[in-house]
Every structure is written in C-alpha cells, then in structure tokens.
C-alpha cells in the first residue's frame, strides 16, 4: 500500500528520519513503526517489516510529541482570545501533542465539572491531549482550598492559582501537603505582589529610563524561596512556573542539590529576550514575569542546559489585537508561544551552543511528561504514538497571519527563526501538517 496524507492508515512506517529521544539525536537515519495509535517499534536503518505503507521522512528529525506544562486556552470566558479548539490547533502546529492548561479562566477551573468540561472540549477538538490543572482556591481568590481529590479523579494533573500568586503561606503549605497525597504537584506562580506593586516591566535600567513602574526580581525570588521552604517542610512536589531570574535558578539549584522535590520550567521568551526589548513600548514584550536582564536570560538558559530547570513551557497567553493596542502600562500581560517555541529553542539555545538538539527536545517532551506523569512525550515501544517531524535547519519568518492561534500577540513577530515543524501526530493520527 502507498502512503497517503489524505487517509492515514492505522498501521504505518515513518522512514528515513533521525530519531531524537532520551536526550540524543540519532546520527544514523532510522524508522518508526506505528500500529493502532501506539509505537510498535523503532530503530536505525531500514525497517524489516514489509507491505506496510511508509511515510518518507526525507531526513527530518522525528521527536516525541512536545509537551507544554503551561498554556492559557482562555475557555471558558474569553473565547475571543482562544478556545480549546483554536489552542489545540496552535499546539499541533507547534509540534505539541499534550498541554497542561492553567485554571485562570472566567469562571476559574475550580471544580470537577470544569475539569471534565475541558477534557471533553479537548477530545472534541481532537488535536492535542488536554490536561487541566485546577485552581488551588475557589475562584482563585486565595481563600481556602478547592476539592483537590475530586478534581484529581476527574483528570486534574496539578493545582495552581496561576495568573495570581498564592499570597497566604498557610494556604500554600496546606495545598502542598494535600496535593502530595494525591500524587500531583502544586505549581507556583511565584510573585510577591506587595513587592511587584503596579510594575509592568522588569525593574532596572530600562524601566528607569522609560519611566515605567518596575517589577523587582526580589518579588519573584522571595516568593520562590518561601514556596521551596514550604515544600521542604511538607516533603511535597513543588513545580515552579516560568522562572525568570538568576536568583530563582540559584534557589532551585540549591534545593535540588539538597534532594528536595522541586521541578521548574522556563519560557522561551525568558531564555531568549531581555528587558531592552521594551524600549519601543510595544506591549508584545509585556509579560509576567517580565523580560529581565541579560544575566538572567543567560542564567535561565544555563539552568535549562544543566538540568536545574527541567523543562521549557510556553506560558502561551493569547490576547486580542485590541487589548495589545493599549499603551504598554495599560495592556494585559502575556504573549503566545506554542507555535514559536521549537524555533526559538533551536535558534536561541541549540544554534548558540547552549545545548544540543537532543537536550532541547528532552526539555520540551520527555521531561515535562515525566515530571507531571503524563502519557505521551516518549518515543519507545508501546508508548502512545505522539510524535513530531521537524526540520531543525529550516528558516521561517514569524508573521501575524501565519498563526493557528486565535491571537497573534507573539514577541517574535518579524523575526526569523530556525527550525520548523513539518507534521505532528497524536496517537498515530495526523494533527498538523505544514504546507511545504
């Protein structure tokens, strides 16, 4: 049988690809054998099985489907920015097969019904595995705890009040203890709002020069320090979201050396861009945590390279054009990331020599899947057939109308990135194919 993109068979081969798994990019070309949504076999050289339709990978890299531990799909409440369907499409276009959604929707994801709703919407969309997190506190208001146990049985993979920090150390402490028994992490959006105040960009030379209120590093550092100590006391798994400062990298490095169960993620923008980008007052460079100083950017990149930071998560935060047309200080925080993450990783980490492609792929698939106990994100026999084919040398220009996301508030508009997704498969089904 011949390969056909139009009708993907339930059993097929992907040949002539460079397998990228377990932190290594294969030197020789190899193949992947898919059967009924799972990986039947894989290896170097040519497959021995005969009579099975084969997709000629043409030398592309074949990696586990990417896994993003931090996305905002805005549904319910802000479907004008993104929905589970449009977000899933953006994810697939970026090479992702699994995403963890943040609960700061309107209303917040703070009960079992909402968790089920998101999972169902994800299944309807069919392009990407949706793993919701639940809010720590009802309405993310920081008063009391939601029903963690019930939500975990419905499919919640962790808890966070992301978008807002948990101001009360007592609540955070209880959440850590409670979640740990259920086998899920607490994800901290670490920010001391009494330090950060009305800041809208990193507090430093550029905020001083541009006349904008700054967000001091200490607002993030002290909040992470508190949560690490609470996790130590509870013996629980704390996951630190969107690390942006060298101080936090250091705190996590120390905590890991001491054997604490701390994991952490960093966003593509925090390892690639610094606060000088704000000089033109474009709200496309307004995020929380903010773009910081070059030594922070380097520390985050190094942290990813040496494993202090476990994984790359996009903090994909779509906003409408109208919102992003407000002045910098009035515009909302956040930028999209799913469709540029791989390119940014290759351009700013691999091609700069910070890490090799094997490590990058690991940071974007295997490791995040492992630390959150998610299916997918592995290229091995018997695993879900979630994989991505990409060309790590392909140059492309980021343009506003090139996105699958409903929003185009990308910090990389106009930039040329290297590395582009050719096709994405989830459970053996095609979820995205780029026009060649």
């Amino acid at each position, binding site marked *: 049988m011949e390969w056909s993109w139009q009708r993907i068979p339930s059993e097929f081969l992907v040949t002539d690809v460079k397998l990228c798994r377990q932190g290594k990019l294969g030197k020789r070309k190899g193949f992947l054998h898919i059967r009924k949504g799972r990986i039947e076999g894989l290896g170097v050289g040519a497959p021995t099985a005969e009579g099975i339709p084969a997709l000629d990978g043409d030398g592309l890299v074949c990696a586990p489907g990417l896994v993003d531990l931090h996305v905002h799909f805005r549904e319910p409440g802000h479907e004008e920015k993104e929905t589970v369907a449009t977000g899933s499409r953006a994810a697939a276009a970026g090479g992702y097969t699994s995403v963890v959604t943040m609960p700061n929707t309107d209303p917040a994801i703070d009960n079992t019904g909402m968790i089920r709703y998101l999972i169902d919407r994800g299944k309807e969309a069919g392009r990407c595995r949706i793993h919701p997190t639940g809010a720590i506190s009802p309405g993310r208001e920081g008063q009391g705890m939601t029903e963690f146990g019930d939500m975990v049985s419905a499919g919640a993979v962790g808890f966070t009040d992301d978008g807002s920090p948990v101001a009360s150390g007592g609540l955070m402490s209880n959440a850590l203890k409670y979640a740990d028994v259920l086998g899920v992490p607490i994800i901290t959006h670490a920010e001391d709002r009494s330090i950060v105040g009305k800041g809208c960009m990193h507090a430093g030379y550029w905020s*001083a*020069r541009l006349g*904008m*209120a*700054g967000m001091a590093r200490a607002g993030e550092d002290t909040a992470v320090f508190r949560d690490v100590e609470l996790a130590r006391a509870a013996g629980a798994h704390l996951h630190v979201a969107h690390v942006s400062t060298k101080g936090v990298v250091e705190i996590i490095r120390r905590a890991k050396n001491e054997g604490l169960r701390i994991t952490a993620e960093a966003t593509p923008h925090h390892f690639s861009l610094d606060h000088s980008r704000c000089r033109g*007052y474009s709200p496309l460079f307004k995020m929380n945590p903010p773009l910081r100083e070059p030594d922070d950017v380097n520390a985050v990149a190094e942290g990813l390279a040496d494993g202090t930071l476990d994984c790359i998560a996009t903090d994909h935060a779509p906003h409408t054009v*109208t919102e992003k047309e407000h002045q*910098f200080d009035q515009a909302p925080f956040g930028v999209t990331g799913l469709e540029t993450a791989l390119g940014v990783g290759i351009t700013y980490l691999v091609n700069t020599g910070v890490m090799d492609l094997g490590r990058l792929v690991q940071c974007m698939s295997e490791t995040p899947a492992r630390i959150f106990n998610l299916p997918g994100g592995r290229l091995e026999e018997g695993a879900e057939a979630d994989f991505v084919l990409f060309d790590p040398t392909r140059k492309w220009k980021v343009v506003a109308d090139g996105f699958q996301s409903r929003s185009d508030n990308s910090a990389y508009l106009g930039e040329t990135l290297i590395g582009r997704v050719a096709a994405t498969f989830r459970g053996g089904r095609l979820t995205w194919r780029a026009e060649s």
Partner: protein
Amino acid sequence: MILKNKDVLGLEELSAEEILGVLEIASRFRAVFDRPVRSVPIMRGRTVVNFFHEPSTRTRISFELAEKRLSADIVNFSSATSSFSKGETLRDTAENLAAMKIDMLIIRHGSAGAAHYLAKVLECSVINAGDGAHEHPTQGLLDIMTMRQRFGDLRGKKVTIIGDISHSRVARSNIWGLNKLGAEVTLCGPPTMVPGGLARLGVNIEYDLKKAVADADVLNVLRIQLERHSSKSFPGNREYHRMYGITEDVVRALKPEAIVMHPGPMNRDVEISSEVADGPRQVILDQVANGVAVRMALIYLLSGGDPGALGGG
C-alpha cells in the same frame, strides 16, 4: 532646518544643536513678549489640537497661549470633557485625529510612550506634553533656557534634581538635555523615589541632601506627587520636609549664585518652604514665561517657520 524630525517627543531624541537652536528661537520670542502686539501670525489657518488625557492646567494653558500668539486655530480635548474614554485605545484616538486633518497635536498622556506611538501613526507633527513618567521635553527645554539665562554655557555646571525622580518625566527630560549640554546632573531624594537604574544614564545619585547641593549651581526641586505614593514609600510630608525640603537653611549653604527652580505646582512646605518659594533665589516665574516662549519656538519651527524671519534676539 533647526529640528530634524517632524515631532518633538523627548530630549533624548534631540541633539545639543537642536536644543540650542530651539532655545535661540525661544529667546527671540521672549523678546516679543515685551512689545505691545505679541502675536506672530505664522499659524494662521492651521489647526492645533491640545489633547490632554491627563489633567494639567499649567502646561495646557502655556501651550494654548503659545498657540494663540502664533494665531493658530485651537481645539482642546481633555479626558474629562471629551468622549475619548479610558476604554478607547490610543489607536482609535489616533484614527479619529488623523481623520480630522489637523496640523499639529499636543499630547499629554498618563502612559509612557503614548506620544511616540501617535507620532509613528500620524502624519502631523506631535509635541509630547508629558507621557507618564517618561519625558516632558518642553519642561526640560524651559528649565534649560532658564538655567542658560543665568549661567550661559552649562558645561561643567552642577544641577541637582531633588525629589520624586521615579515618577518624574521632568527629571528624565532634564537629565537627557543637561547631559547633552555638558552639565553635571545629580539626583537626590529618598531611596524609594530614586531608581538606581538611572545611574547608567550618566548621573550621580546622592541620598544626602546636604552633600547633593553642596556645590550645586542649580536646584531643580520636583513636586512630590502625593497622589502617586502609597504611605509605604515614604513616611510622610513632615519627615520629607525635614530631610529633603528646600528650606532657608539649605539655601543659606548654597553657592551665592545658585538658583532654585520648581516646575510647579508647588506643595509649599513639603518639597520647598514658602520662604524659599518666594525668596530671592527662585526663578519660578522666569520658568513660566520661558515655557510659553519655548512652546512657541517648537510650534513655529515644526510648522516650517523661518528662523531668520524673526530678526535678532
């Protein structure tokens, strides 16, 4: 051409030559004030819009006066009286203004960068009348003009800016302009009001008022923006006045020729004592008069006015 760009957004963007060129024209306009007929009809038939998205009586009146003396047609918008609401994006505002085919826009906005944005999307000239805590170039120019009237060349002159630097667009415009003219700038105020990041702009930062003013030629005293500070960033007016207020005691220790400036409106007996505010060192009314002259000069030059046509100053 004295001004290279169609807009005046900040002193960051102006060269020393441009600053001096504008001030030269401004001083000629200053001379016109003393004549019985004080208007120059260069702007006849041209429309200037004063768009004040943030309340400011002084700056608006000063601009209006400058426009009237140049015989411009004036349209005033302010956030309080117009339909330009808070929810409207600046882009909507810009499109409205563009459709009105105006010749010049004077913009005061609470957000840093607002004037820059409008300048980019509008064809007409834009003068920044203050954008957030970023720049207030006409204030910077009038301050420099006032200093030059006393000292001439500012190279090597020591200017100390005292007060709430973090929220001050006046401070930033002063820093850019004075640096370009070779003056030495020192910033002074409580540490909670002086962002350390500014040191990289080539200024001294000194938290001790006595040291900061010891050999200063100019004290530029900023208004404490009471409304912008929560009680947490400084203990209160009484302590501020004791530690950073410009009082008779402070002035007595100054160099004999040193002057005291204030952009107004003053909080008497907070950042400046009444004796000093009304005393012999202050040049506050010169600042006000220079403000009109500087604004006339900018409007004149941006409208293609011929510097030679004004005659000698």
